[in-house]
């Protein structure tokens, strides 16, 4: 026997879990990780797990994590694209698991890209 409040809690937590099946493309923040052989070799998997962990910890509902193939800049892997709704894609390069919480906090939650991790910064250095 569940109370109304318990049912509501189930609704909420389940929705978080199945949110990625809804295709409200505009609303969703997408984290796309390069996971071709080059990306995986450079350590993309722990990065992806770190993203999933962080998103789950913060109960971020409208964020999906997916992977993509090699885009040809293997030397910059692991690469991660973050696409906020209605905003341009921001590409992070040489991403390490310890950088993830900052990207999530500053960029995904607060909308300010972490410039020093981006491809622009890497190319200018």
């Amino acid at each position, binding site marked *: *026997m*569940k109370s*109304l409040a318990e*049912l509501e809690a*189930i*609704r909420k*937590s*389940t*929705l*978080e*879990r*199945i949110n*990625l*099946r809804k*295709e409200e*493309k505009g609303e*969703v923040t*997408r984290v*796309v*990780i*390069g*996971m*071709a*052989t080059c990306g*995986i070799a450079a350590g993309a998997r722990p990065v*992806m*797990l770190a993203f*999933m962990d962080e*998103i*789950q910890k913060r109960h971020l509902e409208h964020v*999906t*994590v*997916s*992977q*993509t*193939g090699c885009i040809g800049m293997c030397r910059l892997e692991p690469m991660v694209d973050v696409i906020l709704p209605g905003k341009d894609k921001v590409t992070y390069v040489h991403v390490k698991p310890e950088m993830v919480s900052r990207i999530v906090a500053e960029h995904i939650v607060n909308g300010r890209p972490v410039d020093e991790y981006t491809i622009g910064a890497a190319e200018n250095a």
Partner: protein
Amino acid sequence: MDIYRSHVLVCGGTGCSSSGSATLIERFNEKLAENNLEKEVKVIRTGCFGLCEAGPVVIVYPDGTFYSRVKPENVDEIVTEHLLKGRKVEHLVYTDHATREQNAEKALEDITFYKHQHRIALRNCGVIDPENIDEYLAMDGYRALEKALTSMTREQVIDEILKSGLRGRGGGGFPTGLKWKFTYNSQSDQKYVACNADEGDPGAFMDRSILEGDPHAIIEAMAIAGYAIGASEGYIYVRAEYPIAVKRLTVAINQAREYGLLGKDIFGTGFNFDLFIRLGAGAFVCGEETALMHSIEGKRGEPTTRPPFPAVKGLFAKPTMLNNVETYANVAQIILHGADWYASMGTEKSKGTKVFALGGKINNTGLVEVPMGTTLRTIIYDIGGGIPNGKKFKAVQTGGPSGGCLPESLLDTPVDYDNLIAAGSMMGSGGMIVMDEDNCMVDIARFYLDFICDESCGKCTPCRIGTKRMLEILNRIVNGKGKEGDIEKLEELAQTIKSTALCGLGQTAPNPVISTLRFFRDEYEAHIRDKKCPAHHCQALLQYVITDKCRGCTACARVCPAQAISGEVKKQHHIDPDKCLKCGACMEKCRFGAIVKI
């Protein structure tokens, strides 16, 4: 509860299950484990996506990639390429019949098949795991029950259904709210709600899909109905040939009981309600409401005359409110979003949406849900993808054995209850069987009558004997033994049976004959007078001949099982009509198109 980055939805409807989706699920789980992805990717068995033609269907989220006709050996590739490395397996991606495009980056909704659809009754089918009540809850499940029980009076609930304009989806199209009201008005110590999941129309499978894909929607709606009319118990009558539906329904009922959504004192409001499943043995007549209730009572599934109507004296002689599965599937949505929202869709007298089961000579066999008033043309050509193999459309059969066949000139009819009846057919449960130039309309009528003769319960004479006599005449006609006066005799029998049969089965049984006589009378006449079948379908009325296109390759003679074909090498061959079995093997074999049916 863990968050997964990707969900793999595998269709577990009956169609995809029979093309092996259960093996796919096993294989996915194995392969995911091998690649250490089991904590990141979750495999979910859903109900029917509707595009059965393309089964087994697999959708990968969050990207929404739609894979069709997936075989077990393809699973390895999807796991190692798509799920591990993020590269879509292009050659497995569904190709849109209409645009010839692959769905790669496109959302599911953009596929032509889904674009014109509006899914209310099917909203959760193919989206949630039907065996997980939490997922149903997350899609606003049981919110309507909560709303009805905690903030609406019984009269308000009935009023909302009345105002929505919802009509029975089981075929009759009776206003649902009115039926609820009648049963509410009946005074009794015990009342029942019942759900008709007998689904006997050949070609219709929407009720099965709803039960398989979203069983909680029916449970919730029946509980709402129970509250409204004052019933504490409900029965779901489902045919035993639907094992997946029965299993999911059983699981769902148990989950709902566990959560206190069925049982005593639901939400602490004092309302008690519980549900029971009864299995039918698959007799068509048991879909008729009085026969259905007798069957639930454990009696022989035979109809009785009405009145008394079930609303007054139904199951166990108590007032009973029987609705069809699809009717119920709309109820929670109406309570949640309001009657006005629902009534804003559809036509003046037919509100909301209707699910159609597309079958026959059509590219996208499957289930579609469209607003009432969508034209037959849109359903058949835009959504259904038209007729395969460049053949010409001849007719569409709607309404099952009680319905009729509509010709090309009526393709722009907006589909609703009244328009279909005016056009000479009916809505029925929503089966739509498309026929092309190769279908003989007399034979189609014969097929339905044959079905009726099999399914007639035999209780009343017009149905038992009358339909038999009609079938005999039709058999005669398609066998080339039709006589002058046969058509008139058919018409007379049809009218008599229509007006004298005991139940709906007999009363509507002549409809396929009446409608084909109305629109395709010339085909009947050709059979009877000229001893010809214009569609070259009826074997007794056709001949295979070899034309001068023949190069004398001898392939036909070698494949003929009756040695009916003779001729010299490199010279035109000849078929001996006395020996010919009319199997068509020669025609299939001929590479020059030299063999024709006349």
